């Protein structure tokens, strides 16, 4: 018994080490004066943080990324919520098709999606295919599965049919039913999906790099550029990304705990 519990602690210790050391190292590195010839940093400073956040490009790329993330979130929510509700209540026969179309993006690597969109829409000119709008649409494709699963789970958890019929009996039209009755009831699902999409798009590099690149530089592109010429400032940027990922994940965990349901696993192609 004792040996098996020792084994368990070794395994958990290994896992914690593997997961935490790179994060702690990156945070420490972003505050280190110099740390390439000694075991401990030669001193601490906030200079790298000041330098990197003072740049105009920092604010610009961060703004771009927030715009793309929020827009993608909105597109996904507006596209998925009415569709999932309608299929649930009126067209159950459409469900397998919608399931397929929302699962498909899992099987499309980012580079392949970028190539496919370029091949299809390049004929309409670079102004369209290399636009931020195209990036938002492409991000919406990879966001679909993350939005769809939590919304469907939320729909399954509530008695949608009774709610709909009750509202209709009271004279509500379809639009009113959806906005004032259904949406408030499946809000945890919509918010979960939206948070997953947000955290996914916030670190999205592949599509941004291949579709828009320097025309509309996003935060991850800026970060990759920095890794090539200034490691300390890059580490500050990486820490910002990690913090965003942490915050969205913690919000999700809290949300799911309050809703009391299991969380649909987030699996994305990185």
């Amino acid at each position, binding site marked *: 018994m004792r040996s098996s519990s020792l084994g368990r602690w070794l395994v958990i210790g290994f896992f914690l080490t593997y997961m935490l050391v790179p994060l702690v190292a990156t945070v420490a590195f972003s505050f280190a004066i110099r740390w390439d010839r000694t075991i401990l940093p030669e001193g601490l400073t906030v200079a790298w943080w000041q330098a990197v956040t003072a740049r105009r490009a920092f604010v610009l790329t961060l703004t771009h990324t927030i715009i793309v993330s929020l827009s993608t979130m909105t597109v996904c929510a507006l596209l998925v919520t009415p569709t999932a509700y*309608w299929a649930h209540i009126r067209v159950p026969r459409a469900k397998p098709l919608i399931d397929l179309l929302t699962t498909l993006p899992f099987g499309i690597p*980012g580079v392949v999606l970028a190539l496919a969109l370029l091949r299809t829409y390049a004929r309409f000119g670079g102004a369209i295919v290399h636009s931020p709008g195209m990036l938002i649409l492409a991000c919406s494709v990879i966001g679909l599965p993350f939005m769809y699963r939590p919304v469907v789970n939320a729909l399954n958890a509530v008695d949608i049919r009774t709610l709909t019929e009750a509202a209709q009996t009271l004279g509500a039209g379809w639009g009113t039913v959806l906005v004032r009755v259904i949406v408030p009831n499946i809000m945890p699902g919509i918010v979960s999906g939206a948070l997953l999409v947000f*955290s996914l798009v916030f670190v999205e590099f592949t599509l941004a790099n291949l579709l828009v690149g320097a025309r509309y530089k996003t935060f991850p592109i800026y970060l990759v550029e920095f890794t090539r010429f200034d490691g300390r400032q890059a580490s500050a940027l*990486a820490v910002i990304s990690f913090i965003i990922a942490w915050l969205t994940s913690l919000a999700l965990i809290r949300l799911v705990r309050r809703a009391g349901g299991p969380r649909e696993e987030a699996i994305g192609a990185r």
Partner: protein
Amino acid sequence: MERWRPTRSSNPGSSTIPRGESLRARIKSLSAWSALIPFLLFALALEVVPILTVIASSFRTEGVWPTLENYREATAPLIVRSFVNTIKLSTATAGLGVILGTLVSHAIATSRNRYIREATTALADVATNFGGAPLAFAFIVTLGSTGVVTQVLLKIFGISLYPGFRIYSISGLVLAYLYFQMPLMVLLIQPSLLGLRKEWREASLTLGASSLQYWLRIGLPILGPALLGGFLLLFAHSFGAYATAWTLTGPDINLVTIQIAALIRGEVQLEPGIADAMATASLFIMAVCVAGYQWASARAGRWME
């Protein structure tokens, strides 16, 4: 039920539903479908048509269609090696991810400390979402040539990682990918591990089986489909990854996604059709993995009742 309605209306003599009624029902059902049009148009324009365009375009060279010319050119050693490298990398990270992830998940599931259980699961949850450029950079800071852990190993333990090991190589990529593969497997296998009933283990031990025999004859066979499903999903996950590899190694490493991206940016003097052929081959591999995953997870669910 509804599916039979058109057949019935085509034979009005035996139908209890008058013809006009059925037509109205059909129009009603069509109008119900019409509310799905925005979503279906989106999926058609941004998923179906682009993917079919790439597949079709992989069979076209200089206006000739259909032709296998692009695939013939894709047998160039550089391209073949990119597939071999990617498959090796994906097999290694998926295999190690499955083994380590399952061990960790088992340790978490059997831990009696509730706090440890919840904290490690939450950590796995968050870590799965880390990836791409920031993760790659964290590994450069940790295990790069002047990285933090590299220094500690060298100065305290006298172990010199470099030049034998390089984080900017395929083995470095394996370590970086494991950072998201391992927690993903921890989460994927967790329901199946919790589904292993205590009674099964107790019954086999009572009947005189050793712990090893229990795992070999009962535990692992029951987990089999879930392990296979996990392997396929992790394989696909790694096969399609680009951002981590690009940040860590740049164009130095010959992987499928790196090659396709280089062809998109026009950095390489190769026929653009080769990118389409590579993309189509990747889609095929991904489709096999995802379909296999769905099949395996349906089978894995059988024991969960």
